[in-house]
């Protein structure tokens, strides 16, 4: 791993208090991310991975521990960070182009200068003919593409993505993964990508962190060896499936489900690997 640490998370903890009860959403998570790396945070739903991401983005308070980005400790949201949510959260009354330009408006940068960039981004995701359309006139996948453009338009150094494709159907999701691979080829940024899809994590990321519930912590830190540029076809290779089954085993062990339920999928993966080789 590179020596340069762009993101440093150390002993991060988050405890929610609801009345008399306390829930530990994240317990003592530590990792570093070098500049330009795409890191997937993989785990079952409810394991606190989104909370972790929002803390990194300065959108959630930290109970204890620290986050440093670019050498300075996080104290609140920063404009060097772009965030993508599970829903596209487009403003329904704004056209696709104006939604992409929304951060520019908020940041009071000159709109005229960024309009060309916004159009170029829309073109890159294949929406050049939809720039004037409102969100209601776009499909779910198109809306999430607009959201990607919006996160990129002001050129943040770090992109935080909170299960951005989990609300989409399987086919659209594959398309979005392909689009994201393509985008990463052109604009390499540091990224944290939260997902509960093992295949999505392996396909997109340079490195996968596996998080589990109880305790909500990182149980595996795995480099993904596939070279870039990648395309969807790596998903058919035996190496890809082997990595996936390894990660699946880690998740199941972390959840204490490995003994019974975990047995079945692991065998089926083993068969598919044999068939492929």
């Amino acid at each position, binding site marked *: 791993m590179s020596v340069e640490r762009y993101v440093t998370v150390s002993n991060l903890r988050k405890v929610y208090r609801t009345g008399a009860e306390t829930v530990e959403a994240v317990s003592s998570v530590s990792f570093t991310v070098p500049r330009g790396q795409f890191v997937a945070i993989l785990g079952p739903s409810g394991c606190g991975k989104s909370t972790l991401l929002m803390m990194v983005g300065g959108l959630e308070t930290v109970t204890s521990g620290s986050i440093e980005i670019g050498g300075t400790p996080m104290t609140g949201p920063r404009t060097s960070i772009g965030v993508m*949510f599970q829903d596209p959260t487009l403003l*329904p009354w704004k056209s696709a182009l104006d939604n992409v330009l929304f951060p520019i408006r908020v940041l009071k940068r000159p709109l005229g200068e960024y309009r060309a960039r916004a159009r170029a981004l829309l073109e890159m995701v294949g929406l050049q003919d939809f720039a004037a359309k*409102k969100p209601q006139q776009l499909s779910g996948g198109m809306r999430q593409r607009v959201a990607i453009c919006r996160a990129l338009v002001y050129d943040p150094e770090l992109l935080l993505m909170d299960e951005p494709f989990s609300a989409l159907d399987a086919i659209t999701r594959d398309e979005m993964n392909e689009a994201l691979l393509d985008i990463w080829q052109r604009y390499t940024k540091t990224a944290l990508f939260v997902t509960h899809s093992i295949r999505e994590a392996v396909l997109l990321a340079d490195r996968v962190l596996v998080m589990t519930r109880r305790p909500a912590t990182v149980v595996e830190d795995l480099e993904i060896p596939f070279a870039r540029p990648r395309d969807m076809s790596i998903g058919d290779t035996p190496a890809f499936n082997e990595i996936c089954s390894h990660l699946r085993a880690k998740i199941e062990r972390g959840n204490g489900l490995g003994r019974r339920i975990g047995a079945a999928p692991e065998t089926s993966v083993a068969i598919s690997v044999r068939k492929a080789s």
Partner: protein
Amino acid sequence: MTVGDAAVGAPARSAASGTRGLDLARFRPIALPIATAAAALVVWELVVVLLRIPTVLLPGPGDVARELVRDLPVLLRHAVPTGLESLASFALASALGVALALAITYSPLLRDMLYPNLVVFQLIPKIALAPLFVIWLGITSESRLAYATFISFFPVVISAMTGLANTERDAIRLCRSLTASPWQTFLLVRFPFALPYVFSGMKIAVTMAFIGVIVGEFISAKAGLGFYILDAGSRMETAGIFAAIFVLCVIGLALFGAVAGAERLVRRWYRGY
């Protein structure tokens, strides 16, 4: 066999009558209520004529129409203050309602202080308060404006509060991630999100403001359609009362139509088509 034939035949038949059915369906929302109203007027006229009901008790639509035409200049003169006061009190109620909703949404202290009291106030039959406004503000136009505003602002508060509370949580998070100021978040995101909700409250407020002005005119005015109705009533000019009610209907339709039209524009702005 017969069942099968019917099933096959049915789509073909509906396809043949498709064009005619479509036109009827398009005009139905306008044509049907007008036809119903016209039929009711005919029945009314027939009842009045056949049962020889005295005009003082119940004039027929024909008598009302004649009275309307005869006294139209006077009616229109009285319609001006009624219409303007309704419009002004509606505007005041909308502004006051949105302002209160903002205060309640943004300040937990003000919410706890104001909201329960606002609700309790709404439980008072507001017509009972009308004489107080006469005592405080006299029989001036301000008195009626204050009263009409007072009885019509509450629906705007409720709907604007709902709208402001229903802004997508992630949209507000997005603003925070962009280090937007609270004012920017309000102006660029929360208020536009709340706007369609505000309109549903404003549609109720406009009818209530109109009622408030008429009640005010009953109690305290020297002009306006409410005054005209009371005056006509005291002289047993029943046709005059109906003529004034007809003018009220037209004004009410215009006021409500303007708000509903504005709402449609906002919704179209939302959807983009």
